[in-house]
């Protein structure tokens, strides 16, 4: 964790933009410049600066964003639920479709379902996500008009429901405002299925290979010889044994979705953390970039720890 913050800190420091100049402007006198310089703590040794930064972050202070003139922590709190909403729906779709697809592909190896699973995965691994998103927008929004366009809700519905969780689907349900709910749903369908497709590709592929490994084990043969029904063999024996590995894969793909959301959010003008970081980057908003990167990295680490913990719960051997 400390290392993660150190890397972001170094990145922030080597950025070829003078943070002081960005605050005081070109026309400032030397005295103003020096004052701002000191105020930012840039006159202290670099170790001290790093320690101060860590201290601030631990206390939830990521500094102030130059672009929005608000504390970065507040900004992140505002944009993060949007990403969370999108990624959660995406990974959920990936699990619901991907796990059964992977299992069936493994059981019926070489069948047409296996071929479909293979193509789905290959395309998922090879397709640029931003391009697929653009094509989706073009076809389903531009030509067919089935779904909402970019953004979270149509322009008439912005800020109508009170923000409780920040996730607009949940908020509109809490408010019982079904018009907004429907509109938000039509907007999230496309980006969420896009992310869902990518986690589907990954999850189904991994499920398939885990299942194949189990199905070739000797205890499966034993179970079959005992006369156990095929579905019991598959679900009660083989599937039970891949649960642990699956959890790790799902946690990983969830983390990947948070990352994949950077490009997706740009395409769909989705006001989440990915587009927040990118906009901040393009406008050289250093503390916002650092804050965003630290938060995403933190989630990454937390997800890893979480999957390790679940591992221990489900696999008695790991204790």
């Amino acid at each position, binding site marked *: 964790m400390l290392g993660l913050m*150190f890397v972001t800190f170094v*990145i922030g420091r*080597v950025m*070829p933009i003078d943070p002081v100049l960005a605050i005081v402007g070109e026309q400032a006198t030397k005295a103003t410049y020096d004052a701002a310089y000191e105020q930012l703590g840039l006159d202290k040794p670099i170790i001290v600066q790093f320690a101060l930064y860590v201290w601030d972050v631990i206390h939830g202070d990521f500094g102030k964003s130059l672009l929005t003139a608000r504390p970065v922590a507040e900004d992140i709190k505002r944009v993060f639920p949007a990403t969370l909403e999108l990624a959660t729906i995406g990974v959920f779709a990936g699990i619901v479709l991907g796990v059964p697809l992977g299992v069936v592909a493994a059981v019926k190896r070489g069948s047409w379902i296996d071929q479909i699973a293979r193509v789905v995965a290959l395309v998922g691994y090879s397709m640029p996500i931003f391009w697929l998103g653009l094509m989706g927008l073009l076809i389903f929004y531009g030509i067919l008009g089935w779904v909402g366009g970019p953004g979270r809700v149509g322009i008439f519905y912005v800020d109508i429901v009170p923000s409780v969780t920040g996730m607009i689907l949940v908020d509109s349900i809490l408010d019982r405002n079904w018009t907004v709910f429907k509109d938000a749903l039509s907007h999230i369908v496309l980006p969420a299925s896009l992310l869902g497709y990518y986690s589907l590709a990954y999850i189904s592929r991994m499920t398939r290979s885990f299942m194949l490994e189990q199905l070739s084990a000797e205890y499966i043969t034993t179970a079959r010889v005992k006369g156990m029904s095929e579905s019991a063999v598959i679900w009660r024996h083989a599937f039970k044994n891949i649960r642990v590995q699956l959890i790790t894969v799902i946690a990983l793909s969830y983390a990947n979705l948070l990352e994949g959301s950077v490009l997706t959010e740009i*395409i769909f003008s989705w006001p989440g953390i990915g587009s927040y*970081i990118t906009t901040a980057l393009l406008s050289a908003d250093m503390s916002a*970039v650092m804050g965003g990167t630290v938060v995403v990295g933190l989630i990454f680490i937390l997800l890893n720890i979480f999957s390790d913990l679940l591992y221990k719960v489900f696999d008695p051997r790991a204790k």
Partner: protein
Amino acid sequence: MVEDRTWRAWLLTDTPSSRRHAKLAAAYKGWLSFRANSMAMVGLWILIFLVLIAFAAPLLAPHDPFAQNLANRLQPLGSINHILGTDSLGRDILSRLIFGSQITLYIVGLVALIAPITGLLVGTIAGYAGGWADQILMRITDIFLAFPRLVLALAFVAALGAGIENAVLAISLTAWPPYARIARAETLTIRSSDYISAIRLQGAGAFRIITKHIWPLCISSLIVRVTLDMAGIILAAAGLGFLGLGAQPPSPEWGAMISEGRRFILDHWWVATMPGMAIFTVSLAFNLLGDGLRDVLDPKDNEK
């Protein structure tokens, strides 16, 4: 034909007459089993085709990729003179795609050199030295692994400034840790084997052991991994280009071309579609090739 058959027989012999003979025979058998995998061959042919296009770009391209012609902008597919149409500045899309293949190959080639070599160095040194050197090097690797790759690459590009070279550097910086892990794992298993002890008894130093006896054994697993990662590298580079952080306009980089075409997507869909197809084809080819290579070079887990 007679010549051919004897060569085949010489290559397929069960009793090689020399070390080089044995090596060549093994390589030929590998090639035969690789050739039997038709999907992998498709991948290989696409990539050979890409390399040819990249080298012959000035000959093949019907137009200058940078020549603007505002009177002729946003021509649709299949126009006379412009088979794939023109973009918002009237530049020929086909020619830009052809020249873009050079940039793609350049990026992929550089990353595929920098990242595995860095990983190999770090991994073998950590694995061979052990102790605190191992601890420190692996902690650093873990830190880099803790970041989501694209976000880290974004942050690096922001720090270094946008441009192809910096994009290559940023992608390499995010790509090396898995190679270091693989190389370390291999080194750890090799290090304690008998033949390493034997060479050490003969008086070989650490440098010689690492370069002559450990590296050659790490290479094959690294190559497989690199080929499988190529698609990811292409997608990352295109993503950076798309965000405006990779290759800068007017360079005909495919990701940047998509980003340009994005503005007209609803009315002039082909401007963004064509470079996307190009990216997809190339990364698909790398995936197919990687799968095939894994089956040949890594017989232990050919079922994945």
